[in-house]
């Protein structure tokens, strides 16, 4: 670790923390329907939209109605994207002439599930697969919609905690509209212009053929990159315009854009904690959640940076000293790659500026653990807050009993129903990650291309413009590496999908029907089977009366609570996944030290 590297991490933290209060307070005003600086410009547009779609602004929804609206909204989005992707050949803005051949049914399902759920896992290489229309309409629209939906759910849960003896938890359409109009759009506008100024392309040109100095032909991809880049980061989407994502110089050209990109991932999730505190009437409650997020983040960043900076002893033995630079952009170096990896996996962004697959075992364990923790360390926009609140409810329940009272969280009693729903969410995540990964690690399929079963693990030739399809056979053959590292690759894929992160450990060829479908299902399960129980909690908490706190109440705005919350997240995560992690990155670390790599 270098002083320069540590300074950059410290700078990142300082700017982040300074942004929390102003943005958080602004968002609280937005969601409470109060006037803001932007109201004069935006409220006519907002009201116009409500009129257009027949939404009554004051229509308070019960949690069931709220969930139904969200599911309908997501389902329509999912189907539209699927249709657009399949038909991209007939749609405009397609200078490369990509069609359904590049976007088969399983990939289209995976991709539409991925973008609908804010995962933005990309089984395909976008530059070889997607038309500009697919990128800008079919996919980019979800960058906005899924982020808005996440924020809406978080705000609904916050309302459930804040309201007393109430039936409703707000209106989904209003919350989603306000998220986009007042929060995402204004920031993205400024952000995209900044990126253009830094040299990120924004055009509709066909790819440029250039002759390099060496005399070889090279194709330079073009496109409306800056606009997508902004919402990709701010909405914790992570789906890159290019396959190389934020490691690509057109997506992330300068050290400054790199810093701003990292900040923009955490910006909204961090500020939402303040919004939460403001809305429940005690900002200390928000700071406590932020404290837990920040503690877990900084520990992860420290471990990851340390592991990467220490490097690989086997490489050192070859006379190459220094940290692990494999799979990293020399433009960013170790500190910024490690920090980016931790940020993008803490938040469910999934954008990458380095290959997580090439990290040292411990360096790669950190991103994996971050996602396994249920994407609550800052997490996705909205998703992070509601994930953290789910753990807060569990932490309050277990530890709260120890003070000798029925556990309460911000004046609301946590009882059987809330525990049941929170456990359901935890269970669903664990079942999806462990179940699908176990399947992936053992799926014995034939390699004979003529059978239907073999087609399940068939990698299409079109994906990279290669000559013929590849039949992998067994599902554990899709990985580039054997041994524990291969297990990590499979585990990471399903963890990333279930956690709606979308980053790839890479090293796994996921563009086959088996992986496309299982990963797509994992994303849907991880998103909606977590949201529904949490909305149910919101509905149940809203109905409860408020119990004033006193000295006998477990204080949830204290340092002790932060520690209890971190402990709950780590223990629930660690206990569930310890066995598989022991067989993956942990044993790989010991093997590496013993001189064996994969």
């Amino acid at each position, binding site marked *: 670790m270098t002083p320069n590297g540590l300074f950059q991490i410290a700078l990142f933290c300082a700017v982040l923390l300074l942004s929390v209060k102003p943005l958080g307070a602004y968002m609280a005003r937005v969601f409470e329907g109060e006037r803001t600086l932007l109201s004069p410009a935006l409220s006519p547009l907002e009201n116009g939209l409500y009129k257009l779609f027949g939404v009554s602004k004051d229509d308070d929804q019960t949690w069931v109605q709220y969930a139904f609206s969200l599911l309908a909204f997501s389902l329509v989005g999912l189907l539209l994207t699927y249709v657009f992707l399949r038909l991209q050949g007939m749609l405009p803005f397609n200078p490369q002439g990509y069609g359904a051949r590049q976007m088969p049914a399983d990939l289209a399902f995976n991709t539409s599930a991925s973008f609908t759920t804010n995962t933005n896992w990309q089984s395909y290489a976008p530059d070889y697969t997607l038309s500009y229309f697919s990128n800008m309409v079919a996919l980019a629209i979800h960058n906005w919609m899924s982020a808005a939906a996440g924020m809406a759910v978080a705000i609904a849960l916050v309302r459930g905690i804040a309201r007393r003896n109430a039936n409703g938890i707000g209106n989904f359409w209003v919350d989603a509209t306000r998220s986009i109009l007042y929060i995402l759009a204004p920031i993205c506008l400024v952000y995209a212009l900044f990126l253009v100024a830094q040299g990120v392309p924004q055009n509709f040109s066909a790819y440029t053929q250039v002759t390099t100095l060496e005399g070889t032909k090279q194709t330079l991809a073009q496109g409306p990159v800056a606009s997508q880049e902004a919402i990709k980061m701010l909405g914790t989407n992570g789906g890159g315009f290019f396959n190389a994502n934020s490691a690509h110089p057109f997506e992330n050209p300068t050290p400054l854009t790199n810093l701003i990109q990292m900040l923009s991932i955490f910006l909204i999730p961090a500020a939402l904690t303040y919004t939460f505190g403001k809305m429940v009437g005690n900002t200390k409650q928000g700071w406590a959640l932020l404290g837990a997020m920040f503690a877990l983040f900084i520990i992860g960043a420290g471990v990851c940076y340390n592991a990467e900076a220490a490097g690989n002893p086997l490489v050192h033995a070859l006379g190459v000293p220094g940290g692990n630079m494999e799979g990293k952009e020399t433009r960013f170096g170790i500190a910024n790659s490690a920090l980016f990896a931790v940020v993008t996996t803490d938040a469910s962004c999934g954008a990458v500026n380095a290959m997580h697959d090439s990290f040292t075992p411990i360096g790669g364990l950190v991103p994996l653990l971050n996602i396994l923790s249920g994407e609550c360390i800052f997490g996705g926009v909205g998703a992070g807050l509601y994930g953290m609140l789910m753990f807060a409810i569990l932490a309050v*329940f*277990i*530890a*709260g*009993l*120890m*003070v*000798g*009272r*029925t556990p309460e969280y911000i*004046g609301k009693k*946590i*009882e*059987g129903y*809330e*525990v*049941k729903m929170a*456990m*359901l969410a*935890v*269970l669903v995540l*664990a079942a999806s990650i*462990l*179940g699908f990964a*176990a*399947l992936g*690690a*053992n799926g014995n399929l034939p390699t004979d291309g003529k059978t239907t079963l073999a087609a399940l693990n068939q990698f299409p030739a079109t994906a990279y413009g290669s000559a013929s399809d590849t039949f992998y056979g067994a599902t*554990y053959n899709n990985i580039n590496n054997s*041994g*524990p590292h*291969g*297990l990590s690759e499979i585990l990471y894929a399903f963890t990333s999908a279930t956690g709606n992160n979308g980053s790839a450990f890479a090293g796994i060829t996921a563009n086959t029907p088996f992986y496309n479908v299982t990963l797509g299902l994992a994303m849907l399960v991880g998103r909606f089977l977590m949201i529904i129980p949490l909305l149910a909690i919101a509905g149940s908490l809203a109905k409860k009366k408020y*119990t*004033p706190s*006193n*000295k*006998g*109440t*477990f*204080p949830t705005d*204290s340092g*002790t609570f932060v*520690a209890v919350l971190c*402990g709950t997240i780590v*223990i629930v995560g*660690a*206990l*569930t*996944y310890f*066995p*598989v992690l*022991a*067989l993956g990155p*942990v*044993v790989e670390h*010991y*093997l590496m*030290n*013993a001189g064996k790599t994969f």
Partner: protein
Amino acid sequence: MKPKNSVSLFDGPIVRRALSDALKKLDPRAVAKNPVMFVVYVGSIVTTYLFLKDLFGQMGNALFTGQISLWLWFTVLFANFAEAIAEGRGKAQADTLRKAKTQSNARRLISGTEEVVAASELRKGDLVVCEAGDGIPGDGEVIEGVAAVDESAITGESAPVIRESGGDRSAVTGGTKVLSDRIVIRITQNPGESFLDRMIALVEGAQRQKTPNEIALSILLSGLTIVFLLAVVTLLPFANYSIRSAGQGAVPTIPVLVALLVCLIPTTIGGLLSAIGIAGMDRVMQHNVLAMSGKAVEAAGDINTLLLDKTGTITYGNRQAAEFAPMPGVSDREIAEAAQLSSLADETPEGRSILVLAKEKYGLSERDQSSISGADWIEFTAQTRMSGVDFSGQSVRKGAGDSVKKWVESHGGSVPPEFDAQVTRISQIGGTPLGVASGDRILGVIYLKDVVKTGMKERFDALRAMGIRTVMITGDNPLTAKSIAGEAGVDDFLAQATPEDKMQLIKKEQADGKLVAMTGDGTNDAPALAQADVGVAMNTGTQAAKEAGNMVDLDSNPTKLIEVVEIGKGLLMTRGALTTFSIANDVAKYFAIIPAMFVATFPQLQKLNFIGLSNAQSAILSAVIFNALIIVALIPLALKGVPYKPMSAAKTLRRNLLIYGVGGLIVPFPCIWVLDKMLVLLHLA
């Protein structure tokens, strides 16, 4: 307070009975009620089958499988034993209570004539006669007569109590015994619904229902069990993958996977959960309080506001003389002597307290009526509101201020202005002023003080530390109430309170989201008792009050509520502490079992075995044995409960987190290490 009815935790007969009950509870229907233990139960059956297969098939490792199986059975049995021993004390008590039900005949009164019928034939509304020596055949109300009743069968208190018709002392309980006089009782309960029947059912735990909090915790534990089931079931395919890619090792056998599962699921709290609940109810019972449901005990732990009657709860029932305030020109000794003389004929506690004050503070020698011959004693009456004595031309009186004033004026004396000043002063500080006069002279004022029970202030401070607000309820005027409230250290008071005011206060507090507890005994308390979240009725109270409350204090001691609150809190704390401990234990068990499972595939995983367990089998076995023995080791804690110390929630949490959280992380490591060494020493692994 030392609990009554206390039987040692591990009383010989109770333990013997619990041991046989633990075996009876192996009935699958009984185990199925507890999802966590049911998983262990199924694991025991599976490993037993595998053991037999190993043994007769000469395959596998029968010694290892057999030991795993044995310890899994022990795990289930230990949990059953914990529950059985928690029930044991209640069962013993129920047996004692049943003896009180031996009463078989009753003297039923039908239109003036008695007939002897079986007690079981009595129905609501029947009239029965009981005379000295008769057992009272059922719950009822005295409608005629007064009697001394021995209620020791129920309360354990041997001193007889008075029961009389009318008023708040009319309720009698079936199974108690009339010691003197004759009373007529109207039966108020049908057979099988009597207080004694309910009490037997309650102490036996026959009708025990899971409390809301216990249900929530069961859900959490079941959820964790499923999560760990997932982790263990998927471990098999992951192991398959690892072995395939490493080219060595073998997949974990079923007994090993079952062992891992049982070690991970929260068996410690799962096995002790019902014992904790039963023991909590039992602890309430040991304080001689009968809780109608576990829910009420749990609610007691959540109380925000405590309503306490002033008289008898916060203050001793009687006022006591605290000071003699002489008028100008009157010596202390003069007023003390007059006060003493005028009180010799006053048999009320206040009168006697004046004699005590005169003797102790003013050094007068003790006198009684016989020491003055030829005296004419004037006793206190409600009409004159004075007592005193006339002897050898002297006439002394003491009594209510205005009565004494009138009396002096009628003797031609005048009232000095200082008198009214003293009367006002004493009233303002919450006391009762009594005038003392001799002939035509007013000598001074006696200050009767409402004496706050010793130790109350500390108890209220303790309550405040746990976040409970106490409100004193009194019929006194606001001035007096305020003064006593200040002295007792309560947070608030309700003066000149009517039953309706009390009801209003409860409803207002509840509307603010607070839980309210109160005690009461009169019929007019019944609506408030029913409204309160925790209503403790005094056993001496009316039937209506006892029916309305959700607890009955057999000792009729209103301060008992504070202990009930502490028990309620202790109950929740015990559950939370053992849950935390149980989950924290898993960390050590992982470090014992995971390396042992995979060391053949990845020898490097031996690095995780940093506590240095001897071999794979001994590591797994010692984790399983620890898992079983920790249940036994924690039975005393589960039964006694985590002691509740009044302090803020933040402090309590830090303390318990340190003991049960951090302790739970550390304790298993040395224990598993010792077990491992012992197994190797005994050649068991």
